[in-house]
């Protein structure tokens, strides 16, 4: 089956691409680490996707993410709009979407018609982003796949009060030096991150279901920490990393 549109989410950490089928379904997708030469990477990856799905050359391309303006596309749209569109396509209802990406976190209120009613983003620093987690996992020498098991095994969370990535890193070094167990610190790191993102969500109405997208949503530990912080269930959207690219493809189909 060939695609009717392609979506590109050229993020700061990963490059995501989807091929959209005529019924609005994802018929193929790819997630690869982002390369600095985003234009070239996009050309190569899109060619592969087109070939694999027999999608015609002239199928429209929607682009989002920080590299959106560097990509040859029919439309360049912000991640905020694309994530909202992708999420609405998945859920069909109004809600609050928390998107935690590599470079920024966004809390978006999606209206009943699927449009962006309101949004807030982290300030211009790494607090509350995937990068925060990445740096601290590196310092704790823990791989992404080990996170759920370790957090699950923690007896209690060791408090990490800094939300600033640089300060949190030195705090974690001190905690490790004091002999605090890694699972407990890891749980504390997740709580710290969740509390930062919950502050963003705090200014938006809370009487709506909460969804989550972005690469960070792949980790159960983060979803649980956020859910606890918000005091309500958080539903992870299917293929959370692809929601932005899906929204971009939907915008041009």
């Amino acid at each position: 089956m060939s695609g009717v549109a392609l979506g590109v989410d050229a993020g700061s950490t990963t490059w995501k691409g989807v091929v959209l089928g005529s019924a609005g379904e994802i018929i193929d997708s790819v997630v690869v680490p982002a390369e600095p030469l985003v234009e070239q990477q996009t050309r190569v990856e899109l060619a592969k996707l087109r070939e694999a799905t027999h999608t015609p050359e002239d199928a429209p391309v929607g682009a989002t993410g920080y590299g959106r303006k560097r990509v040859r596309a029919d439309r360049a749209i912000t991640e905020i709009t694309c994530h909202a569109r992708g999420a609405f396509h998945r859920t069909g209802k109004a809600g609050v979407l928390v998107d935690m990406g590599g470079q920024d976190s966004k809390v978006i209120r999606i209206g009943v018609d699927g449009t962006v009613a309101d949004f807030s983003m982290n300030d211009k620093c790494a607090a509350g982003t995937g990068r925060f987690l990445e740096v601290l996992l590196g310092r704790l020498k823990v791989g992404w796949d080990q996170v759920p098991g370790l957090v699950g095994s923690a007896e209690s969370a060791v408090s990490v009060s800094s939300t600033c990535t640089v300060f949190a890193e030195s705090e974690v070094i001190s905690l490790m030096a004091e002999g605090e167990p890694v699972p407990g610190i890891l749980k504390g790191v997740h709580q710290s991150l969740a509390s930062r993102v919950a502050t963003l969500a705090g200014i938006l109405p809370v009487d709506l279901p909460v969804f989550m997208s972005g690469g960070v949503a792949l980790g159960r530990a983060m979803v649980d920490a956020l859910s606890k912080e918000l005091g309500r269930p958080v539903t992870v959207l299917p293929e959370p990393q692809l929601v932005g690219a899906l929204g971009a493809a939907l915008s041009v189909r």
Partner: protein
Amino acid sequence: MITRRLQYELIKHVGGPFLMELQGLQKRLKGRRGPRPDSPFGPPLESIGKLKDLMTRHYLEGRYADGAVPVAWVTSGFPVELLRTLGFHSVYPENHAALCGVQRLCSEYSDAAEKVGYSRSLCSYARTDIGGVLLDKTPVGRLPRPDLLACCTNICQTVLYWYRCLADHFKVPLVLIDTPYVYGAKDSAEHHQQYVKDQLEELMAVAERVSGRRASEERLLEVARLSYEGTMLWGECLAESTHRPAPWTGFDGFFHIGPIVALRGGAECNAYYRHLLDELRDRVRRGVGGIKEERYRLLWDNLPIWFNVREMSTLLAENRFNIVVTTYTNAWAEAGKRMDPTDPINSAARSYTHVILNEDLDRRLELMSRLAGDYQVDGALLHSDRSCKPYSIGQVDLRDKLAERAGIKSLLLEADHNDLRAYSTEQGNTRLQAFMESFA
């Protein structure tokens, strides 16, 4: 003294006008370069040339002012009419700092201030100004040394400490006008106005001593009349943007504010705004807009992001958004409502107490709702300015209340009016773009 005075008068009446004429002639000979065909903006305002001439002459005269006439460095919200009566040449460090901001000089100047211990958390205007003084640098050639420093707390408390530092540096007197904050009422209390009036009278005594001149009642009335007239003319210029399309943009307004801030109370300021008003009216008649296609109209709250004006105005215009009104530029027009040129001292006590930053959030909300209605805006951009805390505090509440009471969608944009190190262009643009997309 006599030589300096002669130099000053020559520059003011002969050299300055001659240089401007020469520049104008050069421009005419070179031919006017029109805007790019794909520019999203309407034809540029013809008045911009006159504005440049006026401000250039002001700074040029400044170079020769000290030693020739008394010089005061004053805050933007200072009742300068009183000083003008005594013939003071006024320098506006905020206005000058904004000029440095546009030219992206803040980092260099601020570094000099930070090196001697001023915190980066301090207002970037203060850092730009103090840094410039320490480096003895300015893009305008030379700033005259002050004989008097004059600050009014109606815009913030920072000015008090900033000007005390300047007073210590220049070893000259500092006069302070303290304006009690107006909250919970539409009008400031009578005893508050009396308190301000008493200070204004004290100011006159100090200014007379510093300048060695005596104030004349007749001259004070004349300056007050000119100031009132200029304020009203500025208001009329802004009000032309209630038309669709607005004949200019809010960004144009940020630059055209120069004369009403720095030359208020002078005949040249008013002549300029008369000229600008004629042009704006003509554009309205001909349906010429500040941007080529005005689809959405926005209100701007807070100071501009001086170093990013071009980029932001282009991004907005390309997406058919025009800023048609700003609370910042409106502040100098709003003052007119409480001015009475026949009673200059009481008028100054009242109007300078009631400036936007000296009034509570309810008044701010009232003002913004009114402006939003008058200018028929579709949304608002609230610049959360790291350097201007009094302007930025409460914006989260204002944003919620604007949506709740006036149905106006707003974006909080975190930036700084002068320090580009405190701003992330990519993130700022993404937010702005997403905000614009939400209107589609």
